[in-house]
């Protein structure tokens, strides 16, 4: 089952006002070996755009586990604003 189809099953209350995820130093991504954020994330939030040389962050798919912030020190991670983000039906 594709991750896109799985994430479709997850309930979100997306904060349209902005991302709770970011990168403190975008230059670091350019030099980064292996870019673990692009594969450790269970929701595949991070993709690297080779042409633009930039990390793209699809924050509205984030399930707030925190794996990316453990794998990479440059990722700035905070909780979404109160009431926003993932909302599980089962848990």
């Amino acid at each position, binding site marked *: 089952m594709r991750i896109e189809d799985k994430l479709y099953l997850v309930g979100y209350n997306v904060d349209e006002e902005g991302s709770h995820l970011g990168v403190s130093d975008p230059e670091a991504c350019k030099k980064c070996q292996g870019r673990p954020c692009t594969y450790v*994330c269970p929701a595949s939030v991070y993709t690297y755009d080779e042409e633009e040389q930039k990390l793209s962050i699809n924050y509205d798919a984030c399930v707030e586990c925190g*794996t990316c912030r453990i794998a990479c020190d440059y990722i700035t991670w905070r*909780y979404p604003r109160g*009431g926003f*983000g*993932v909302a*599980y*039906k*089962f848990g």
Partner: protein
Amino acid sequence: MRKKDFDVVIVGAGPAGLAAGYVLAKAKVNVAIIERGTFPGSKNVMGGIFYRKALDDLMPDFYKEAPLERHIIEQKLWLISEDSVFSTGIRSEKFNKEPYNCFSVFRAKFDKWFAQKVQEAGALIINETVVKDPIVENGKVVGVRTDRPDGDLYCDCVIAADGVNSFLAKSLGLREKITPNKVAIAVKEIIGLPENVINDRFGVSNDSEGVTIEITGPYFEGMETMAFIYTNKNSVSIGVGTIIEDIIEHKVNPNDLIEKFKTHPSIAPLIAGGETKEYLAHMIPEGGYYAVPKLYTDGFMVTGDAAMLVNSVHREGSNLAIESGKLAARTYLEAREKGDFSAKSLSAYQTKMEESFVLKDLKMYRNLPHLLEEKRYLLTKYPQLIIDSMYNIYNVDGVSKPDKIKAIKERLKKDFGYWNLAKDMFTLWRKLG
């Protein structure tokens, strides 16, 4: 005098925070629980097994009304390779009698129910609110800053129950940065199946009896991984948890791991025809005893996952959380008698925890996380040897049993060496015993 909004502010409405809130509310303490989700449970995830005892001590017979799935009558451990399974476990009619040992649960439902009980006992639960920072004055925690306008809340004491990512414990310097070798990422799917299909496949007689299977072994290619399948009423919870350091080194994606796991020849038939209802991910603190921080400072105590209280060997966590919340609350009540919320006064919480099963259990396995980190082959080579030996012994192919035993011994000698084998066995015995 500084304003005081509450006697105690608890951060996080999971099992630790709710247990603390329940004890305090029952003692008529003015307590608020701050939860960032739309309701308690909406952000909360675990594999799904909840042990009765810790909560039953607080709320006798809660299991008769709580939203639970199945009580567990059989717990199995599987070692798996690409094409084989070696299975052990315990099934007992003793587990099939009230008050029951443990249950499969859905946290979004269970925590919501638990929170309702805590609210009825008199605690205030404030949803949709993120705690940004502790408020510290003269070196003492005196409240929390939330993301609400004018959202500073002052109190005698803050209890942190803000989960594995606990920014509170970290900002107060109690907890170090979590390193990738001390935490696992677990992904889970809830797969819907008819009740009778689950009963037949897992060998139970009705929809209240349940089975758990924990699964590890060489199938996971040397990564420290624990997978699981738990039965719910009309679904199964299936998941794979792997140490993040291994995920990074092996360059794998957690969703790809669970997708591969679902195709294993012994797993696929258990979930065949099922429909995925939800996909979830959560970090599990696996550092054990040595990763547990100091549990208190002036005006502050830390509980549950925020204090890394997980016994990964026995996949216990929510019961440790409840016990820690309970003991933190009792420590507050004693401190209140004295009117003293200093670190010295709250250090009684640490003592209570050391005397409880929580830290005694973690202490017993204190060397295991490091051992497994150092000797990953304990999770691959030995299970592979067990699987292959069992296969050979059960496979009738004209080779005599003495020759089969001899071949196993030779392999032991070749793959491990008797001396290393003895050393590993001794180490395991020492570190587990």
